């Protein structure tokens, strides 16, 4: 009975969330579109290093993100409408739940992690005869409809006669002027300044900041990286990983921490919440990304899995090895007790 009512309220919130999340889905789709064009620009010297986009890496990150459906479809601020009740058979309910999990998977799609874009400083022509022609710059945008925004021609004619390509900031601003995207502002909101970010973090609203950042900035802009780095650093410092678990930003945070080699806090948090499988997959991801570290080589030589992997990691690599070993022992005790009982 309780399960049925829980499922019913889930279906209700899913159908409510469906309409509001449509715009979010579009944004995710837009961001994945730019992500596809971005990977072709990557030209890393060693191709053996695993990337964010590798299927194995993505698999691990989706697993550790978790799927807490209650959190994904929690009520969002929207118009007050009376709830709709549907009479369903068991089979229909099962289908509705499956549809809800599909929708949750789409909502949990990870935003792309791209390297920072190189600044544009291309000069198309230098006409010194035009020096002093006007006090203001002229900015010319091509508003042909069917070109992707990255390939649009946006040029600036300076008052000293130089015709140059527009910088990335100018490009973003003008694309927003002529092709406005929902939720994006022309000037970035003040919440992204350093002092305001600190205030927002003290109120535990990291997820909102990351969502706003997702809408406002392009994934490879410097502002995007700065805000994300600040958020992840703050989360790591205070150990508030639970805020992002089961949201689409968790994978990005895990990737950032793995690349910065500071996975200890996250592993400890996972062990505290008894998510052993997640901890194991996180450590295996660490070994995938840093195959030359001591713990990776040790694990490869011993072909370790499960708790052994964690023990090797705790001994070799982490700074808080004592804590991890304690937590492991506690977990093993509880496992024995539950198996004995």
């Amino acid at each position, binding site marked *: 009975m309780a399960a049925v009512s829980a499922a019913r309220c889930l279906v209700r919130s899913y159908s409510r969330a469906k309409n509001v999340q449509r715009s979010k889905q579009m944004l995710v789709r837009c961001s994945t579109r730019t992500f596809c064009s971005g990977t072709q620009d990557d030209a890393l010297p060693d191709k053996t290093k695993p990337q964010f986009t590798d299927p194995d890496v993505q698999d691990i990150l989706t697993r550790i993100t978790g799927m807490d459906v209650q959190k994904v479809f929690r009520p969002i601020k929207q118009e007050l409408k009376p709830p709709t009740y549907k009479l369903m058979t068991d089979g229909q309910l099962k289908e509705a739940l499956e549809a809800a999990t599909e929708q949750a998977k789409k909502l949990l799609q990870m935003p792309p992690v791209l390297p920072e874009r190189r600044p544009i400083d291309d000069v198309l022509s230098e006409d010194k005869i*035009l020096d002093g022609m006007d006090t203001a*710059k002229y900015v010319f945008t091509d508003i042909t409809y069917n070109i992707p925004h990255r390939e649009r021609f946006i*040029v600036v004619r300076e008052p000293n006669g130089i015709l140059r390509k527009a910088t990335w900031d100018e490009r973003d601003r003008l694309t927003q002027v002529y092709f406005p995207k929902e939720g994006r502002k022309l000037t970035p909101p003040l919440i992204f300044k350093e002092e305001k970010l600190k205030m927002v973090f003290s109120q535990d609203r990291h997820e909102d900041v990351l969502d706003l950042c997702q809408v406002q900035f392009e994934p490879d802009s410097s502002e995007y990286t700065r805000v994300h780095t600040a958020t992840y650093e703050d989360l790591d410092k205070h150990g508030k990983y639970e805020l992002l678990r089961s949201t689409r930003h968790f994978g990005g945070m895990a990737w950032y921490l793995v690349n910065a080699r500071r996975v200890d806090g996250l592993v400890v948090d996972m062990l505290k919440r008894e998510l052993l499988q997640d901890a194991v997959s996180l450590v295996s991801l660490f070994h995938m990304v840093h195959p030359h570290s001591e713990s990776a080589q040790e694990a490869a030589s011993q072909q370790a899995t499960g708790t052994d992997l964690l023990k090797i990691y705790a001994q070799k690599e982490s700074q808080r090895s004592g804590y991890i070993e304690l937590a492991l022992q506690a977990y093993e005790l509880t496992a024995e007790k539950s198996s004995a009982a």
Partner: protein
Amino acid sequence: MTKLFSFVRLLINYHGGHVVIRLALAGHNQSNRPFYRIVAAYNKRARDGKYLEQLGTYDPLPNIYNEKLVSFNFDRIKYWIGCGAHPTKPVAKLLGLSGFFPLHPMTITEAERRRAQAEQTETSTAAAAEGVEEGQQQAEV
């Protein structure tokens, strides 16, 4: 020549009219705040009247970043020029500044005139400043 093929609805028969790409004032309800649409229209039509197609915009007042925003739909401009449209002088100047057309000679002439004016004002202010200094020195002496 007249583009009768594309307009079956209204049988306007302009005698010797042609298509031009020109600036049309928009937002006529605001004084002292011009904003132009770059428009393909018949030559004989009113400046702000019915046009064939809007090809872009031009904002003559600079914004907070000291930019004058101009937009062109180059694809459609190429089409209309291919159909035989004539751009007017200001549109030709803007297209020249954007790099789509070669530079308009009047743009260069205007730049030279402005530079000459600036030099003149500089020399006159320099002379005035020197005159003031001399006056001060004489007063001190």
